[in-house]
């Protein structure tokens, strides 16, 4: 049976090259099309310089460009600046208004999924549900490490969605929550910054054994008298959860899009850190329909020693997706 899982990329993946002016948004889209990743996730606050005053002509220009490459939008990543002012937080009304602004722009762009930052309060989102329904945009709260699917903060959003019986509020998992192994790119960076290999090995071993992070941090910081790089590496364990992939099926009705986080792929197209080989079978088993959207975040860990090649990293991730989704070498049909 053909899977209903589609492949895409977030423009976030090419942040290094775009920041440096080596790629523009069309270069990213063109590349995505070349690897069969036709679904494009956009961060308007990164990719649209006129934000929030985006004109209809600009939106039409984006659609023409996407169509030139056979691509389409999949998801809109919103932000909420509750700390816009230094003298007070945005009021609840101001927060709702800001989200409404994003829902409206998302709808004007013809996008039906909106990534909601995880810190946005569930009661604020509850107030936004009528607008999301009217504009037919699914608000997906980003389940980002160190949160995980069963985290009580996430369950509050699920509770609101269930109570309202709405199809327009749910979640949007970031695959960083399935970090089964410690990412080699992070370890190598801490070693370049002065962490001793015997200490980094200890931290990796502790993570491998799923020891709760505070034990390891104390061991490294106090008992081993770790240097600052070693302590910083140990502290990254606070953001390195390995959530249970078997729970995916239970949550599948609440999400329509996935941010496929990764820090680096091996030459033979495997992710040494995240358990995609366990997650994707669970998605297939659940009959989940949506887009796996690449989110390459390794640039910041390797840019000190090499030119970042986001395209090659994303290409390798899609080779892995094709393998795990059972696609042919020619790539899939994309709706």
């Amino acid at each position: 049976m053909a899977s209903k899982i589609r492949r895409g990329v977030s423009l976030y993946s090419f942040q290094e090259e775009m920041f440096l002016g080596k790629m523009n948004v069309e270069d990213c889209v063109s590349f995505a099309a070349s690897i069969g990743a036709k679904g494009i996730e956009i961060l308007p606050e990164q990719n649209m310089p006129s934000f929030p005053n985006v004109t209809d002509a600009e939106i039409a220009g984006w659609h023409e460009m996407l169509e030139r490459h056979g691509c389409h939008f999949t998801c809109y990543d919103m932000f909420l600046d509750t700390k816009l002012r230094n003298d007070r937080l945005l009021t609840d009304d101001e927060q709702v208004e800001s989200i409404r602004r994003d829902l409206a722009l998302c709808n004007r762009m013809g996008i039906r999924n909106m990534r909601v930052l995880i810190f946005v309060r569930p009661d604020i989102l509850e107030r936004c549900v009528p607008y999301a329904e009217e504009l037919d945009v699914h608000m997906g709260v980003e389940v980002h490490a160190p949160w995980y699917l069963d985290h009580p903060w996430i369950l509050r959003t699920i509770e609101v969605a269930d109570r309202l019986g709405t199809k327009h509020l749910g979640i949007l998992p970031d695959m960083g929550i399935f970090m089964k192994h410690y990412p080699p790119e992070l370890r190598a960076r801490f070693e370049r910054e002065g962490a001793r290999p015997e200490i980094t090995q200890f931290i990796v071993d502790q993570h491998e054994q799923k020891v709760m992070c505070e034990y390891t941090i104390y061991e490294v910081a106090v008992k081993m008298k770790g240097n600052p790089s070693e302590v910083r590496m140990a502290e990254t364990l606070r953001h390195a959860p390995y959530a249970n992939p078997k729970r995916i099926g239970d949550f599948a009705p609440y999400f329509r899009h996935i941010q496929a986080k990764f820090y680096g792929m091996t030459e033979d197209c495997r992710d040494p850190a995240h358990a995609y080989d366990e997650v994707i079978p669970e998605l297939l088993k659940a009959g989940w329909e949506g887009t796996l959207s690449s989110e390459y975040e390794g640039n910041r860990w390797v840019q000190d020693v090499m030119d970042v090649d986001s395209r090659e990293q994303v290409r390798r991730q899609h080779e892995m997706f094709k393998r795990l989704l059972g696609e042919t070498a020619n790539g899939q049909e994309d709706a």
Partner: protein
Amino acid sequence: MFDKYLIDPDSVTDIGPADSPTGFSFTTKLGYYRGLTLSMLEEMTVAVDGEELPREAVSFDDGNGPITLDEMETTYDRRWNFGAPATLSVTYPGGFPKGEHTLSLRQRLRISYMPFPAMRFTEKTIVKE
């Protein structure tokens, strides 16, 4: 995340009269993966050879006109875009010192979803003849 790119070392230029410069300027970018409204830029701390210059000595221009750091605090209708170069002008009598010196920049950003301000830092060695 983009710390190493915050200062363009080739952009350091004296400002004011050529024989008695009043300061120097350089090109910087926002150390973040998206643009920000100017009110969320809390600090742009410039230091020469590790010595921090007063906040009042620094002014920012992203191409839409110069603005002081104090004015930025309440500027809610202007954004500094992702990857967009801006100029920092610094009052520094005599201009950037001749010879080999370090220039550093610390950006403190108020990012709402983070529990603490984001700090970005870079230090570059500048050689001026």
